[in-house]
Structure formats: structure tokens, C-alpha cells
């Protein structure tokens, strides 16, 4: 019960559709673009359905400041992701990191496409063979 109370309290802080307007300006457009992309792919741990770019809570503001400072200090995007994941776990990353544990997820679309292509090829070949061997195939017309 108590745990429930905590979660409700956490949820309460994010109640309402408040969002952050983030007027942070980094020194150059390239950095600014990286900053915006990165803050959008980090989950706000408090309002768990918003990125830190959109979340109005102070923790999100702190994390945005951290991202801005690290980028300005010349760290790479992966450094920032690593920094966040080391503190908050992979849960904070909206883009799952490639690893043995997420390999299945990232390979899923490719595997599905390959599997789908094989299935399509087999069905079409089988049906085309049926059509070729059917003496009545050209017998009736179907309207389009």
C-alpha cells in the first residue's frame, strides 16, 4: 500500500499536461541540434512518459543542464548516453542501446522482412505452378 502511495505521489508531480519550454541556447547550431536530439531520447524518470526535453519537473531541468554542459565540454553523444545510463539504468534511454540483451529487438524488423520475403516467394512460386498446371486457368474471366 505504501509503495502505491509513493507512486501516486510521483505521478501527482507530473499531473496535468504541463510541459517544459526549454530556451537553452548552445553556442552553435550543430551543438544545438545534438542537444535537442539527445534531450528527446532521454526519458524523464519522474514523469516516465516524457523525455527530459518535454518534462517540466526540476530533475529534467537538471538533466538538460547536464547534457548541455557535457556537449559544450566536447563530450560525444555516446558519452552522454553512457553517463545517464550508468546512473539511471538503461530505462532512461528511449533508444535501446545495441547489446547482446537488445540484439533480438534491433534485429526483429530485419528478420521479419527476410522471413516475409521467403514466405512470399514460396507462396507465389507454389501458386504460379498451380496456375501453370491448371488446364482451366484461362477459362473464366474475373472483373477487376
Amino acid at each position: 500500500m505504501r509503495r502505491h502511495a509513493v507512486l501516486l505521489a510521483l505521478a501527482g508531480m507530473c499531473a496535468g499536461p504541463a510541459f517544459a519550454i526549454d530556451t537553452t541556447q548552445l553556442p552553435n547550431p550543430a551543438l544545438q541540434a545534438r542537444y535537442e536530439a539527445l534531450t528527446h531520447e532521454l526519458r524523464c524518470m519522474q514523469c516516465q512518459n516524457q523525455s527530459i526535453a518535454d518534462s517540466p519537473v526540476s530533475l529534467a531541468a537538471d538533466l538538460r543542464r547536464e547534457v548541455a554542459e557535457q556537449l559544450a565540454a566536447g563530450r560525444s553523444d555516446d558519452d552522454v548516453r553512457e553517463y545517464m545510463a550508468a546512473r539511471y539504468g538503461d530505462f532512461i534511454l528511449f533508444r535501446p542501446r545495441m547489446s547482446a540483451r537488445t540484439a533480438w529487438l534491433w534485429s526483429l524488423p530485419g528478420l521479419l522482412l527476410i522471413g516475409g520475403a521467403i514466405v512470399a516467394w514460396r507462396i507465389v512460386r507454389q501458386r504460379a505452378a498451380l496456375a501453370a498446371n491448371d488446364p482451366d486457368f484461362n477459362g473464366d474471366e474475373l472483373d477487376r
Partner: protein
Amino acid sequence: MTRYLLPLAAFALLAVVLGVGVRHSKDKGVVASPLIGRPAPQFTLPDLLVAGAPFDSRRMHGRWHALNVWGTWCVECRAEHEVLVAARQAGGLPIVGLNWRDDEAEARRWLAQLGNPYEAVPVDAEGRIAIDYGVYGAPETFLIDPAGVIVHKQIGPLTAEIWERDFLRRAARGKDGS
């Protein structure tokens, strides 16, 4: 024709996953910390109550202790505070109270009114140390061993029972072991 059984088999797997999901769903929102078993981040911050003598986390080395993250804006912290005060009176485990993103005057008033359970109160006004500890909502409490390794993390308010079970006993077991 086993291939017509495939959808059923896939659904059976899905049902198992969903079943696990339902069992875990009450813990949704509580995210396990990757810092368990790792050295606690070191920091030096001004002390709320001792002007001019900053708190250095190395001061706690060699001792089992708890690091409690709190703020006067945090509703849940008020209920938890009684537990902490009682814990200090009972002794056993020193508590460091990391004051997170707070108004210092308010924080001093809070401790004067409700009692001070902390051995030291480092002030994290900008929330940087909280980030190092992966804090995402007060209150949170860490159990740290004499080597400075994080042993356990409590998310949400402590109760006397949780304090006894997850903090005092773990620390006692650790002391016996060493």
C-alpha cells in the same frame, strides 16, 4: 499440420510474458538502480548546519551508513522523518541527509522543528550529486558499506519495518561477516 499450431504456441508465450507483467505491475515506476554493488560517488558539499566546514563523503569511510535524500518540498519526506528521528535515537546506523534542491532556511527550520536525525546534512542545491546517485524522486535512501560501496537503495519513504529489515540487518550481517 503443426504450422496451424504456431499461432496458439505464440499466444501461449505471450500469455506467460503478460502474466509476469501483471505480477510485476505493482512495482512499475520503481526502477532498479545500476549503482547497487558499485562505489558510491564521492562528493564534497557545504553542510547545512556547520558553516565553513564542508562535508566530505570520505568522512564516512570505514563505517556502515545510510544516505537519505530529502527536501522540505517533498510531501512523503515528512512522514518518513519521524522514522529517521526514531532510528537515530535507537542508534545503530549513522545517517547522512542529502538536502536536495531545497531552500536552506526552510530546511534548517524543518530540522529545528521536527528534530535532526542526520550526522551531517550536505546541501545539494543544484542537484548534481543527486544525479550522480541516480536519484529521481525524494525520498530515496542508500545503504553504503565501510568500503564505500552501495549495498541497497530504498525508493520511497522508509518505515520502521523497512529500516530494520533492509538497512539495520544488512549492516549487521556485513559487520558479522567482516
